[in-house]
Protein backbone atom coordinates (compact mmCIF):
# COMPACT_ATOMS: atom_id res chain seq x y z
CA UNK A 1 0.00 0.00 0.00
CA UNK A 2 1.45 3.34 -0.99
CA UNK A 3 1.23 6.02 1.65
CA UNK A 4 1.75 9.72 1.26
CA UNK A 5 4.78 11.02 3.12
CA UNK A 6 4.18 12.75 6.45
CA UNK A 7 3.13 16.33 5.79
CA UNK A 8 3.45 19.47 7.89
CA UNK A 9 0.15 21.34 7.83
CA UNK A 10 0.67 25.01 8.66
CA UNK A 11 -2.38 27.03 9.71
CA UNK A 12 -1.78 30.76 10.19
CA UNK A 13 -3.78 33.78 9.10
CA UNK A 14 -0.60 35.78 8.40
CA UNK A 15 0.51 35.47 4.76
CA UNK A 16 4.10 36.34 5.60
CA UNK A 17 4.32 33.63 8.27
CA UNK A 18 2.83 31.02 5.91
CA UNK A 19 5.27 31.91 3.17
CA UNK A 20 8.32 31.89 5.40
CA UNK A 21 7.35 28.60 7.04
CA UNK A 22 6.71 27.03 3.65
CA UNK A 23 10.16 28.07 2.45
CA UNK A 24 11.83 27.00 5.70
CA UNK A 25 10.25 23.55 5.79
CA UNK A 26 10.83 22.91 2.10
CA UNK A 27 14.46 23.89 2.53
CA UNK A 28 14.91 21.01 4.98
CA UNK A 29 12.98 18.61 2.75
CA UNK A 30 9.73 18.44 4.73
CA UNK A 31 6.52 18.32 2.66
CA UNK A 32 4.35 21.26 3.67
CA UNK A 33 0.82 22.50 3.00
CA UNK A 34 -0.41 25.84 4.27
CA UNK A 35 -3.87 27.13 5.17
CA UNK A 36 -4.96 30.69 5.88
CA UNK A 37 -7.72 29.72 8.31
CA UNK A 38 -8.70 26.96 10.70
CA UNK A 39 -11.85 26.35 8.67
CA UNK A 40 -9.87 25.87 5.45
CA UNK A 41 -7.74 23.26 7.17
CA UNK A 42 -10.75 21.51 8.65
CA UNK A 43 -12.45 21.39 5.24
CA UNK A 44 -9.41 19.70 3.72
CA UNK A 45 -8.67 17.49 6.74
CA UNK A 46 -8.08 13.82 6.06
CA UNK A 47 -7.50 11.73 9.20
CA UNK A 48 -5.65 9.09 7.16
CA UNK A 49 -2.83 11.44 6.27
CA UNK A 50 0.23 11.26 8.46
CA UNK A 51 1.99 14.39 9.68
CA UNK A 52 1.60 17.17 12.19
CA UNK A 53 -0.14 20.48 12.53
CA UNK A 54 1.66 23.78 13.13
CA UNK A 55 -1.09 26.03 14.37
CA UNK A 56 -1.28 29.69 15.26
CA UNK A 57 -3.16 29.88 18.56
CA UNK A 58 -4.57 33.35 17.87
CA UNK A 59 -6.56 33.75 14.64
CA UNK A 60 -9.65 35.62 13.58
CA UNK A 61 -12.67 33.39 12.98
CA UNK A 62 -12.01 29.93 14.36
CA UNK A 63 -9.04 30.21 16.73
CA UNK A 64 -6.31 27.63 17.07
CA UNK A 65 -7.84 26.48 20.35
CA UNK A 66 -11.23 26.00 18.71
CA UNK A 67 -9.67 24.00 15.91
CA UNK A 68 -7.95 21.80 18.51
CA UNK A 69 -11.32 21.26 20.16
CA UNK A 70 -12.97 20.32 16.86
CA UNK A 71 -10.18 17.87 16.09
CA UNK A 72 -10.53 16.33 19.56
CA UNK A 73 -14.26 15.95 18.98
CA UNK A 74 -13.66 13.87 15.87
CA UNK A 75 -10.91 11.93 17.71
CA UNK A 76 -8.23 13.13 15.32
CA UNK A 77 -4.77 12.05 16.45
CA UNK A 78 -2.71 14.59 14.54
CA UNK A 79 -0.14 16.14 16.93
CA UNK A 80 -0.31 19.92 17.24
CA UNK A 81 2.55 22.36 17.69
CA UNK A 82 1.05 25.71 18.65
CA UNK A 83 2.60 29.02 17.69
CA UNK A 84 2.06 31.53 20.49
CA UNK A 85 2.95 35.13 21.14
CA UNK A 86 3.49 37.13 24.30
CA UNK A 87 0.49 37.19 26.58
CA UNK A 88 -0.75 33.82 25.40
CA UNK A 89 -0.02 31.90 28.60
CA UNK A 90 -3.69 31.24 29.52
CA UNK A 91 -4.36 29.93 26.02
CA UNK A 92 -1.23 27.79 26.08
CA UNK A 93 -2.32 26.29 29.42
CA UNK A 94 -5.73 25.50 28.00
CA UNK A 95 -4.18 23.90 24.93
CA UNK A 96 -1.95 21.76 27.18
CA UNK A 97 -4.98 20.68 29.20
CA UNK A 98 -6.46 19.50 25.90
CA UNK A 99 -3.46 17.51 24.80
CA UNK A 100 -1.25 19.79 22.69
CA UNK A 101 2.20 18.28 22.13
CA UNK A 102 4.25 21.43 22.00
CA UNK A 103 4.47 25.19 21.74
CA UNK A 104 6.78 27.64 20.16
CA UNK A 105 6.75 31.26 21.15
CA UNK A 106 7.23 34.01 18.58
CA UNK A 107 9.85 35.08 17.66
CA UNK A 108 11.47 31.67 17.35
CA UNK A 109 14.65 30.27 15.87
CA UNK A 110 14.13 28.16 12.77
CA UNK A 111 15.96 25.20 14.28
CA UNK A 112 13.72 25.26 17.38
CA UNK A 113 10.66 24.93 15.20
CA UNK A 114 12.19 22.16 13.10
CA UNK A 115 13.15 20.23 16.25
CA UNK A 116 9.63 20.48 17.59
CA UNK A 117 8.16 19.44 14.26
CA UNK A 118 10.42 16.40 14.13
CA UNK A 119 9.32 15.40 17.62
CA UNK A 120 5.68 15.81 16.63
CA UNK A 121 6.21 13.69 13.52
CA UNK A 122 7.78 10.98 15.63
CA UNK A 123 4.81 11.05 17.95
CA UNK A 124 2.48 10.76 14.97
CA UNK A 125 4.42 7.74 13.69
CA UNK A 126 4.18 6.12 17.13
CA UNK A 127 0.46 6.84 17.39
CA UNK A 128 -0.22 5.41 13.94
CA UNK A 129 1.91 2.33 14.55
CA UNK A 130 -0.01 1.79 17.81
CA UNK A 131 -3.35 2.08 16.04
CA UNK A 132 -2.25 -0.33 13.32
CA UNK A 133 -1.11 -2.85 15.90
CA UNK A 134 -4.45 -2.51 17.68
CA UNK A 135 -6.37 -3.05 14.45
CA UNK A 136 -4.33 -6.17 13.71
CA UNK A 137 -5.05 -7.59 17.17
CA UNK A 138 -8.76 -6.87 16.82
CA UNK A 139 -8.78 -8.58 13.41
CA UNK A 140 -7.24 -11.66 14.96
CA UNK A 141 -9.74 -11.59 17.81
CA UNK A 142 -12.62 -11.50 15.35
CA UNK A 143 -11.36 -14.75 13.84
CA UNK A 144 -11.89 -16.61 17.11
CA UNK A 145 -14.96 -18.83 17.45
CA UNK A 146 -17.41 -17.88 20.22
CA UNK A 147 -16.08 -20.73 22.35
CA UNK A 148 -12.47 -19.70 21.80
CA UNK A 149 -13.42 -16.15 22.79
CA UNK A 150 -14.89 -17.45 26.02
CA UNK A 151 -11.73 -19.41 26.74
CA UNK A 152 -9.66 -16.33 25.92
CA UNK A 153 -11.61 -14.26 28.43
CA UNK A 154 -11.15 -16.82 31.15
CA UNK A 155 -7.49 -17.37 30.37
CA UNK A 156 -6.66 -13.69 30.42
CA UNK A 157 -8.35 -13.36 33.79
CA UNK A 158 -5.69 -15.71 35.05
CA UNK A 159 -7.87 -18.79 35.51
CA UNK A 160 -6.31 -22.25 35.39
CA UNK A 161 -7.51 -24.74 32.76
CA UNK A 162 -9.14 -26.85 35.43
CA UNK A 163 -11.20 -23.94 36.71
CA UNK A 164 -12.18 -22.91 33.16
CA UNK A 165 -13.26 -26.47 32.42
CA UNK A 166 -15.53 -26.34 35.45
CA UNK A 167 -16.92 -22.93 34.55
CA UNK A 168 -17.66 -23.88 30.94
CA UNK A 169 -18.76 -27.37 31.82
CA UNK A 170 -16.33 -29.08 29.42
CA UNK A 171 -13.37 -31.37 29.94
CA UNK A 172 -9.99 -30.01 30.82
CA UNK A 173 -8.62 -31.53 27.62
CA UNK A 174 -11.15 -29.50 25.56
CA UNK A 175 -10.04 -26.33 27.29
CA UNK A 176 -6.42 -27.16 26.50
CA UNK A 177 -7.26 -27.60 22.81
CA UNK A 178 -9.21 -24.33 22.65
CA UNK A 179 -6.46 -22.57 24.51
CA UNK A 180 -3.82 -23.80 22.07
CA UNK A 181 -5.97 -22.64 19.15
CA UNK A 182 -6.42 -19.20 20.75
CA UNK A 183 -2.67 -18.81 21.24
CA UNK A 184 -2.06 -19.85 17.65
CA UNK A 185 -4.73 -17.63 16.09
CA UNK A 186 -3.65 -14.64 18.17
CA UNK A 187 0.01 -15.25 17.38
CA UNK A 188 0.78 -15.12 21.10
CA UNK A 189 4.16 -16.35 22.24
CA UNK A 190 3.19 -16.56 25.91
CA UNK A 191 0.29 -15.97 28.26
CA UNK A 192 1.77 -12.58 29.16
CA UNK A 193 1.90 -11.67 25.47
CA UNK A 194 -1.74 -12.72 25.05
CA UNK A 195 -2.83 -10.62 28.03
CA UNK A 196 -0.93 -7.61 26.67
CA UNK A 197 -2.68 -7.95 23.32
CA UNK A 198 -6.11 -8.15 24.89
CA UNK A 199 -5.44 -5.07 27.02
CA UNK A 200 -4.20 -3.24 23.94
CA UNK A 201 -7.28 -4.20 21.93
CA UNK A 202 -9.64 -3.14 24.72
CA UNK A 203 -7.95 0.22 25.09
CA UNK A 204 -9.21 1.09 21.64
CA UNK A 205 -12.81 0.10 22.31
Amino acid at each position, binding site marked *: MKEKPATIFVVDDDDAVRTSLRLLLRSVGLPVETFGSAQAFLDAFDAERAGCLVLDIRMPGMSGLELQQRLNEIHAIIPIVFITG*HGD*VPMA*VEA*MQHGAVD*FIQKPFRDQDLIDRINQALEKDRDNRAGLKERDAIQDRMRQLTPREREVLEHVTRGKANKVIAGDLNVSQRTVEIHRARVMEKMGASSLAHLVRMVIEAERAA
Partner: protein
Amino acid sequence: MASRPTDIHTQPPVIVCVVDPDPLVQRSVARLLGPLGAAVEGYATAGELLARLQFAVPACIIVENRLPDMPGIALLQELRARGLQIPTIMLSGDDDVRDAVSAMRAGAIDFIEKPFIDRALVTQVAPIIDAGGRSRG
Protein backbone atom coordinates in the same frame (compact mmCIF):
# COMPACT_ATOMS: atom_id res chain seq x y z
CA MET B 1 -8.42 4.30 67.35
CA ALA B 2 -9.98 7.15 65.43
CA SER B 3 -13.58 7.74 66.28
CA ARG B 4 -16.03 7.94 63.46
CA PRO B 5 -16.90 11.57 62.76
CA THR B 6 -20.60 12.15 63.03
CA ASP B 7 -20.66 15.90 62.80
CA ILE B 8 -19.14 17.88 59.94
CA HIS B 9 -17.60 20.29 62.43
CA THR B 10 -15.53 17.57 64.07
CA GLN B 11 -13.92 16.43 60.82
CA PRO B 12 -10.30 17.22 60.14
CA PRO B 13 -10.02 20.15 57.74
CA VAL B 14 -9.03 19.79 54.10
CA ILE B 15 -5.45 21.04 53.88
CA VAL B 16 -4.31 23.28 51.05
CA CYS B 17 -0.61 24.22 51.01
CA VAL B 18 0.60 27.39 49.35
CA VAL B 19 4.34 27.74 48.70
CA ASP B 20 5.31 31.32 48.00
CA PRO B 21 8.03 33.46 49.58
CA ASP B 22 5.64 36.42 49.52
CA PRO B 23 3.61 36.46 52.75
CA LEU B 24 0.99 38.62 51.06
CA VAL B 25 0.27 35.86 48.57
CA GLN B 26 0.07 33.28 51.35
CA ARG B 27 -2.38 35.48 53.22
CA SER B 28 -4.53 36.28 50.24
CA VAL B 29 -4.82 32.58 49.32
CA ALA B 30 -5.81 31.83 52.92
CA ARG B 31 -8.44 34.56 52.82
CA LEU B 32 -9.72 33.27 49.50
CA LEU B 33 -9.86 29.53 50.23
CA GLY B 34 -10.43 29.54 53.99
CA PRO B 35 -14.12 30.41 53.68
CA LEU B 36 -14.51 27.54 51.20
CA GLY B 37 -13.55 25.11 53.94
CA ALA B 38 -9.81 24.70 53.48
CA ALA B 39 -7.15 24.90 56.15
CA VAL B 40 -4.57 26.89 54.23
CA GLU B 41 -0.94 26.41 55.26
CA GLY B 42 1.65 28.85 53.94
CA TYR B 43 5.29 27.95 53.27
CA ALA B 44 8.06 30.18 51.94
CA THR B 45 10.28 27.49 50.45
CA ALA B 46 10.13 24.11 48.72
CA GLY B 47 12.11 22.64 51.60
CA GLU B 48 9.47 23.66 54.14
CA LEU B 49 6.74 22.06 52.07
CA LEU B 50 8.68 18.83 51.57
CA ALA B 51 9.27 18.63 55.33
CA ARG B 52 5.56 19.13 55.98
CA LEU B 53 4.61 16.42 53.47
CA GLN B 54 6.19 13.82 55.70
CA PHE B 55 3.37 14.38 58.16
CA ALA B 56 0.38 15.47 56.12
CA VAL B 57 -1.18 14.89 52.74
CA PRO B 58 -2.78 18.09 51.51
CA ALA B 59 -5.68 17.98 49.08
CA CYS B 60 -3.98 20.51 46.85
CA ILE B 61 -0.66 22.34 46.57
CA ILE B 62 -0.25 25.83 45.12
CA VAL B 63 3.33 26.66 44.11
CA GLU B 64 4.95 29.89 42.97
CA ASN B 65 7.37 29.30 40.11
CA ARG B 66 10.18 31.36 41.65
CA LEU B 67 11.10 29.87 44.99
CA PRO B 68 14.24 30.74 46.95
CA ASP B 69 15.56 27.18 47.15
CA MET B 70 14.52 25.56 43.86
CA PRO B 71 12.47 26.34 40.77
CA GLY B 72 8.79 25.61 41.29
CA ILE B 73 8.89 23.26 38.30
CA ALA B 74 11.66 21.26 39.97
CA LEU B 75 9.45 21.00 43.05
CA LEU B 76 6.63 19.63 40.91
CA GLN B 77 9.00 17.06 39.47
CA GLU B 78 10.18 16.16 42.95
CA LEU B 79 6.60 15.59 44.11
CA ARG B 80 6.06 13.28 41.16
CA ALA B 81 9.31 11.44 41.78
CA ARG B 82 8.10 10.78 45.32
CA GLY B 83 4.91 9.27 43.93
CA LEU B 84 2.70 11.97 45.43
CA GLN B 85 -0.40 12.38 43.32
CA ILE B 86 -1.59 15.66 44.78
CA PRO B 87 -3.24 18.15 42.42
CA THR B 88 -0.80 21.01 41.98
CA ILE B 89 -1.31 24.52 40.64
CA MET B 90 1.52 26.79 39.61
CA LEU B 91 1.52 30.55 40.06
CA SER B 92 3.80 32.81 38.06
CA GLY B 93 4.39 36.49 37.60
CA ASP B 94 6.30 35.94 34.36
CA ASP B 95 4.43 35.84 31.11
CA ASP B 96 6.33 32.88 29.70
CA VAL B 97 4.71 30.20 27.60
CA ARG B 98 7.74 27.94 28.10
CA ASP B 99 7.31 27.97 31.88
CA ALA B 100 3.61 27.27 31.51
CA VAL B 101 4.27 24.33 29.21
CA SER B 102 6.99 22.92 31.49
CA ALA B 103 4.71 23.20 34.51
CA MET B 104 1.86 21.42 32.75
CA ARG B 105 4.26 18.71 31.56
CA ALA B 106 5.48 18.31 35.12
CA GLY B 107 1.90 17.50 36.08
CA ALA B 108 0.38 20.82 37.14
CA ILE B 109 -3.39 20.96 36.64
CA ASP B 110 -3.21 24.69 35.96
CA PHE B 111 -0.76 27.56 35.58
CA ILE B 112 -2.15 30.84 36.80
CA GLU B 113 -0.62 34.23 36.08
CA LYS B 114 -0.26 36.75 38.90
CA PRO B 115 -1.57 39.06 40.05
CA PHE B 116 -5.13 38.11 39.13
CA ILE B 117 -5.22 34.61 40.54
CA ASP B 118 -8.45 34.61 42.57
CA ARG B 119 -11.03 33.48 40.07
CA ALA B 120 -8.90 30.77 38.46
CA LEU B 121 -7.81 29.48 41.88
CA VAL B 122 -11.37 29.19 43.15
CA THR B 123 -12.42 27.46 39.92
CA GLN B 124 -9.73 24.82 40.33
CA VAL B 125 -9.57 24.42 44.09
CA ALA B 126 -13.22 24.68 45.20
CA PRO B 127 -14.15 21.27 43.69
CA ILE B 128 -11.04 19.72 45.27
CA ILE B 129 -12.00 21.08 48.70
CA ASP B 130 -15.56 19.80 48.22
CA ALA B 131 -14.34 16.35 47.20
CA GLY B 132 -11.89 16.27 50.13
CA GLY B 133 -14.63 17.13 52.61
CA ARG B 134 -16.96 14.49 51.17
CA SER B 135 -14.43 11.67 51.11
CA ARG B 136 -13.95 12.09 54.85
CA GLY B 137 -17.65 12.25 55.61
